[in-house]
């Protein structure tokens, strides 16, 4: 603190925007170099590969836009995969976010033993996916499974769950609700960051619980909600591991998620070029939709850190 006057002078001398540019670029330089090496470079390779017939065993052969043509006009599973993925994403992600948000509100209370409950609620998200999948295959099993036993208690007929073509996607959504813990703790961290005196101020003004939620909690949480919407969408369209481990895309391609189709093309059927073309199509579509979500954010996302600009 002794040097304060000197540094302030320096700040004044240096043009503020130049100072910012220098620091900004300095701080993001690791990301730029890392992402270039580990993301941009492989990305470029995949773009080139999407124009080739490449089995990853021999050398790639240039075939122009044939992979893209195949995708849109020949492959009967392509549009199936698009449909499955859209169904899961647009039906599942909103439900996941709402359930996670409500759970976070519930866990944000300060009652006795809440730490214990938080841990219990987070448990499912901790399990390795390999174990998670095995557990749920048991629960879903039409003959041994716990879920059909529970249905029977209430007099409902047994279901096929992930083994039925109509029930497989709803079953995956149900399963995803079980492990929304990751989203819950993001919300929880956000809720914990809401300034207490803001909440107290409403109470003094005689505002109701709903009032407090609607006018303080919800607006302050919008940056976090925005984050979960974007990430939920991006990870939703890239859903892969559960169907890969549990259903292999079946039955009758009813759970052939986009990235699962892509993965099988790449490694099981040795069509890396085609897989890359599929990846780039997804990339572009995801960018466009994310762009729309980002553009919409100015309408509903409230940034405390941007009030003064």
């Amino acid at each position: 603190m002794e040097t304060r006057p000197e540094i302030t002078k320096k700040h004044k001398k240096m043009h503020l925007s130049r100072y910012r540019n220098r620091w900004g670029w300095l701080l993001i330089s690791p990301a730029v170099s890392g992402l270039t090496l580990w993301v941009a470079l492989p990305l470029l390779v995949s773009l080139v590969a999407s124009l080739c017939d490449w089995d990853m065993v021999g050398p790639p052969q240039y075939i122009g836009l044939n992979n893209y043509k195949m995708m849109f006009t020949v492959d009967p599973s392509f549009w199936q995969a698009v449909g499955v993925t859209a169904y899961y994403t647009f039906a599942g992600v909103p439900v996941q976010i709402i359930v996670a948000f409500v759970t976070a509100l519930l866990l944000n209370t300060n009652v006795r033993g809440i730490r214990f409950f938080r841990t219990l609620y987070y448990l499912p998200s901790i399990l390795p996916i390999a174990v998670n999948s095995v557990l749920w295959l048991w629960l879903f099993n039409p003959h041994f499974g716990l879920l059909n036993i529970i249905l029977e208690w209430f007099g409902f007929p047994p279901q096929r769950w992930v083994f039925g073509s109509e029930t497989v996607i709803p079953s995956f959504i149900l399963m995803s609700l079980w492990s929304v813990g990751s989203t819950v703790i993001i919300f929880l961290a956000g809720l914990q960051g809401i300034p207490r005196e803001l909440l107290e101020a409403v109470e003094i003004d005689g505002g109701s619980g709903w009032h407090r939620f609607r006018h303080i909690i919800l607006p302050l949480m919008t940056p976090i909600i925005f984050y979960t919407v974007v990430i939920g969408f991006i990870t939703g369209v890239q859903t892969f591991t559960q169907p890969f481990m549990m259903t292999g895309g079946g039955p009758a391609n009813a759970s052939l998620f986009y990235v699962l189709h892509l993965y099988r093309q790449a490694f099981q059927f040795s069509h890396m070029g085609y897989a890359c073309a599929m990846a780039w199509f997804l990339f572009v579509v995801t960018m466009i939709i994310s762009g729309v979500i980002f553009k919409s954010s100015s309408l509903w996302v409230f940034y405390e850190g941007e009030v003064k600009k």
Partner: protein
Amino acid sequence: MLYSVLIIGALFTTMPFLWLLRSSVMNMREIFTMPPVWLPEKPQWKNFADVFTMLPFGRFFLNSGIIVALNIIGALFSNTIMAYAFARIDFRGRNIMYALCLSTLMLPQVVTLVPLVVIWKYLGGLNTFAPLTVPAFFGNAFYIFMLHQFFKTIPLEYDEAAFVDGANYLQIILNVIMPISKPALAVVAIFSFMYTWNDFFGPLLFLNEEKMYTVALGLKMLTGMYSTQWHILMAAATLVVLPLIVLFFFAQKYFIEGLTLGGLKG
């Protein structure tokens, strides 16, 4: 009222986990008996010992521990700095760089796996921990985005006050932003731990020798091609999950103790 809701929810979340626990002390046949039994006739504690004789899990735990520790350190420092720059420094080219950074989340990783292996071959990193740890120090768009959103909720006056006091950006990050962002940083640490601990695809691609393998890979190995000993698998899964539960139980105190913005202001 609150408790009954909490308890019903907890039943839903813990049921499958209890199923895992009870299966880990059963024999193969009991696990699948129909109608299901909830407790084993005689607990098979031997399953846990078998895990260690079948595969060198002690070694796997050590390897995973090293990789996870480096990943957490890397993730906390690199992402905080970068997210700060994107969220709170108004520099030229910021928006385009941020968009590029986020766009890396949108390409399915499947297609970059093979090129990555080739790149790491030229960097001399195959069959070492480098490909599994070094990238953590160079930022991850997922965490950058998340921290960016959290940092955006902090009023800019804090930075300005520190700036007027003569602090540079690095000092602001260390002394102002990090202390009030403990909840968010705890989330990054937990996610980074979980992701690294459970990832088997990275280790599968980059490691060739058993002595380098991780617990996630070891777990995968227990599910054999033609025969899976489910009781051993469940015991191993229980062992693999325990450190995560303990970690979470302790890490979450930061959600409560982490200074809230209000606390600082007052």
